């Protein structure tokens, strides 16, 4: 007899290293009572060190596993066609120095930008003013502020794009890569709409 099984992949899953991921972790399942518990316990993937920190599992792999489990199963998939598994090394701990650093950065960054706004976007005057506020002296060239500022400019861009030459600061895709991808998607959807004569029909064509 045929079993009908409904599968809905979850969107995102967080696991620890060296853990085995079961079908119940990656998807919601609706099936016959007789096989439900067995289906839940099908191992889908064992996390190894080679996987680094992101794994994507396609629904086709799940269907293949189910077919290997029982030939008579008929699978209906609903929802997203893949799951993103995120491997988290240690318990999520917020690092206090990191937090303080970002807080400090946002605080002074926001202060400087609003001072710039008030001074009619004259960076030089603002920097002289900051120098006077902190030290009480007047200096027309406060290089002790300006040189770290200049280096910080480059540092800020590198942090934002998450790239130092080929080396990445961490594994997340950089906004630039996401942007390239989105641009390519836009081009692709334009091409698929405009090169395909059947996709649009005007009144005079009928």
């Amino acid at each position, binding site marked *: 007899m045929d079993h009908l099984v409904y599968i809905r992949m979850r969107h995102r899953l967080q696991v620890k290293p060296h853990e085995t991921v079961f079908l119940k972790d990656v998807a919601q399942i609706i099936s016959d009572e007789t096989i439900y518990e067995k289906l839940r316990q099908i191992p889908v993937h064992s996390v190894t060190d080679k996987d680094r920190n992101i794994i994507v599992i396609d629904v086709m792999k799940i269907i293949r596993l189910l077919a290997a489990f029982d030939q008579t199963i008929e699978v209906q998939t609903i929802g997203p066609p893949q799951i993103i598994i995120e491997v988290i090394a240690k318990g999520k701990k*917020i*690092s206090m120095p*990191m*937090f303080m650093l*970002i807080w*400090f*950065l*946002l*605080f*002074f*960054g*926001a*202060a*400087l*930008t*609003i*001072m710039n*706004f*008030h001074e009619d976007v004259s960076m*030089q005057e*603002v920097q002289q*003013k*900051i*120098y*006077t*506020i*902190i*030290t*009480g*002296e007047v200096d*027309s*060239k406060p*290089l*002790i*502020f*300006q*040189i*770290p*500022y*200049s*280096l*910080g*400019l*480059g*540092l*800020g*861009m590198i*942090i*934002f*794009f*998450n*790239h130092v*030459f080929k080396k990445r600061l*961490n594994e*997340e895709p950089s*906004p*630039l890569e996401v*942007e*390239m991808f989105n*641009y390519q998607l836009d081009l692709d959807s334009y091409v698929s709409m405009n090169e395909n004569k059947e996709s649009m029909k005007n009144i005079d064509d009928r």
Partner: protein
Amino acid sequence: MFIGLASGIAVGAGFVAFLSVLGIIPRLTQLTKTMKMIHYYEWAAVLGVIGGAMAALWNPVFSISPFVLIPIGLACGTFVGMLAAALTEVLNVFPILAKRIGVDGQITYLLMAFVFGKVFGSLFQWIYFVSK
């Protein structure tokens, strides 16, 4: 007084809108994995704006060592650098440029040219150009 308050609200709202369009705060929390602290980051920006406004308009004087300026300068520069990076990203400069000249793989070198250009230009301005 009412006019002052009204203009302050307008400017503050504009500032926050600008920050959120550029998405700098989410980017930083994503890099440092501190998603839970995002409210404190909002307060950092708000307090920074208030502090900056007071510093610009009241001219207080603290009379402390000028070396305090080094980390402050670095923080300000990083913030402005991120603003610039976010702006070029919003305007889609890099993806289009890379596609046009066909260097999809070497986009980080383009980026580095940009970064070094910014640093060099800034240093040039403060050290040489201003005193000319």
